[in-house]
């Protein structure tokens, strides 16, 4: 079991957790992720490591409500534990001094892009940040992104904050005005595809972080396979970052909707009684703690 040392909402549906996992905290690099299993009947879900602290051995994850598992996790508080966390998985981001980089985050993708933006800056890049969200309420990590970028552009779909429009509008505008050497885009699949379409003709090297459905995260199941050009890659070990211009986004979208029915059913059942489920998970967790303590004493 892995203790939650801090839990706080960044936006109504987005929560930050610091979880005790010293081995992972020591090794992790920007761009890597963990797989979490909240409780014994739960599924394994991948989440990017947003930050880590080697002093107190914690890793930070930032979780957006999607279906049952993320919502259940987002109800957990400081002092609760998750059953399993494994990592750091995936290849770290490829970081070098490209020159001028545009780092684009959409929604919770900002949390995934943020650690890489920090590294890019450290390597001496001129870093431009563009962050998009549906509205002002959902805007996350603004202070952090502002502090690590040389220029920062907030965008909202409804204009309630920053400029009204999509991140791609801003990107196209920037590319017209200045030379851009590298683009990193992380967010919803349609956003990443749109970014790839903007930079393809301009010949700007562009990397996206893919989010296929995963199970083990170690290359064992092949469920996370994605089409990159004419090659099949396993996103958990060959990625999750890939050349945006080679990604087959249609296949990714289709594969990600494979389990819609079961996901919706589980979510509906969960939402009918979320507190009951949370209590069961906490109860089991306490039982396990007692059992562990007894064993340790014997």
């Amino acid at each position, binding site marked *: 079991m892995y203790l939650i040392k801090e839990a706080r909402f960044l936006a109504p549906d987005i929560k930050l957790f610091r979880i005790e996992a010293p*081995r*992972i905290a020591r*090794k992790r690099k920007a761009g890597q992720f963990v797989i979490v*299993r909240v409780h014994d*009947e*739960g*599924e*394994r879900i991948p989440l990017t490591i947003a930050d880590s602290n080697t002093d107190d051995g914690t890793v930070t994850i930032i979780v957006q409500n999607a279906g*049952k*598992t993320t919502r259940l996790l987002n109800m957990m508080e400081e002092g609760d534990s998750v*059953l*399993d*966390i*494994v*990592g*750091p*998985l995936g290849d770290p981001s490829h970081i070098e001094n490209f020159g001028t980089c545009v780092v684009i985050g959409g929604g919770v993708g900002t949390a995934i892009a943020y650690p890489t933006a920090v590294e890019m800056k450290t390597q001496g890049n001129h870093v431009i940040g563009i962050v998009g969200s549906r509205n002002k309420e959902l805007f996350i990590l603004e202070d952090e992104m502002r502090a690590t970028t040389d220029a920062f552009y907030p965008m909202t779909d409804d204009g309630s904050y920053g400029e009204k429009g999509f991140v791609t509008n801003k990107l196209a505008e920037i590319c017209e005005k200045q030379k851009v050497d590298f683009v990193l885009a992380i967010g919803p699949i349609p956003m990443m595809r749109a970014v790839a379409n903007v930079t393809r003709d301009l010949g700007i090297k562009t990397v996206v972080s893919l989010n296929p459905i995963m*199970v*083990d*995260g*170690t*290359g*064992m*199941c*092949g*469920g996370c*396979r994605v*089409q990159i050009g004419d090659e*099949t890659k396993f996103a958990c*070990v060959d990625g999750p970052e890939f050349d945006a211009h080679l990604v*087959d986004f*249609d*296949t990714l979208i*289709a*594969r990600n*909707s*494979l*389990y819609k*029915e*079961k*996901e919706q059913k*589980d979510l509906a059942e969960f939402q009918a009684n979320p507190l009951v489920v949370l209590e069961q998970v906490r109860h089991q967790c306490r039982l396990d703690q007692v059992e562990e303590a007894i064993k340790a004493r014997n």
Partner: protein
Amino acid sequence: MDRLPPKERMKISRSSMPEQDAKDRARNFLEVNLGLPVLAAQHEAQRCLDCADPKCVGACPVGMQINDVVTLVLDGDFIGAAKKIREDNVLPAVTGRVCPQENQCEGACVLGKKMDAVAIGYIERFVADYERETGNVGLPDLKPSTGKKVAIIGSGPAGLSCAGDMAINGHDVTVFEALHEIGGVLVYGIPEFRLPKDIVKNEVENMKNMGIKFETNVVVGKTITIDELMTEEGFDCVFIATGAGLPKFLKIPGEHLGGVYSANEFLTRVNLMKAYDPEKYDQPIYDCRGKNVAVVGGGNTAMDSVRSALRLGAKNAYIIYRRGEDEMPARKEEVHHAKDEGVQFMTLVNPVSFLGDEKGNLKVAHLQRMELGEPDASGRRRPVPKEGSDFEMPLDVAIIAVGTGANPLVQSTTPDLDTTDRGYILADEETLATSKPGVFAGGDIVSGSATVIRAMGAGRKAAKAMHEYLTAQAPV
């Protein structure tokens, strides 16, 4: 029970395994084989001729002293028999269920020449189950602590058997496992209906009681490297038993479609994540109810996948295999069980491509008939496509079970570890020592996909060499 004279013994016919009715079991995940009752087990033991030179023992990859075990069973000393078994085999409840006995111990039994071999697997299973059910485990005695630290990477049968032997020798053993459960293929691959997971759990508890430590959620190569284990964490010796877990695909068009799975993914969802109980567990699996499901392959993995699909409610469950039934590598019992349950066998057939609908889900398989040509490197006749024999069949789920390869995570992060050109770890045949001092390797990661008991045999072999390596070092 007194031994009958040889003539009388040879009159007894081989016991048959009581099993769940085929119609019922094809729709549930409960164990198929029910195990022999006491009298039947002793009856079966009577058939053994107690050979002076028991061929069966030599054919068991861990050299289990079968004739001695049989004698103890006849004496009614079942716990003694269990203890005898455990001298060579730490997972008897597992091997009694999943060993391909017809190619190993039973295949060599002298009785087999004239009649049916002694049902060694059934007897072994009986003894192990008796021990577990009565709660009287015949745990071996441990030698005094040596103070040496041993790391085992991977908790499949190779890792577990090495851990057991090293603990008996007094070493401080920690097993590191990437997944959240201990057992390797025994928990993520082989289904509940063939090997109930509680049995594996129970064996792991026994090992914990022997002082062995288990750390789950550690992916060696990612979470920590072998070098870090040996320097920063002070492990004196390492055994790599990471299995052959990399799934192979057919590399044909349409394999990205929804509904196309590797056997590893399908079985992991079903077994490790318990997707067969969707009311209780969250991890989803493609809804097989009323669907056409085909498994490509002819090994144990293929049989496990197809029988799981049937239990998940498939309307039609097919095996598609490019050679003939005689060439199938699966255990004979599994093939029979699959047939009894209603699995349809399409042999000498191979998929050419998969076609999907507008949503990206599998709908049709394009197939080709094969015929057997000249023998290939494996000695089996090579299948060659028959010209103009293409045909299509409606298909919703395809599970690819055509073998696995070596996962590179450990090898690629351990620079001084020599590997074969296919990525398996090179180890000395006798000692299983690798090119890296203090590091040994065995099981499927060295041999390629083999069997549970062969992996356990490798674990023991390595343990012997590792113990010698550690005792040759200056005492702490």
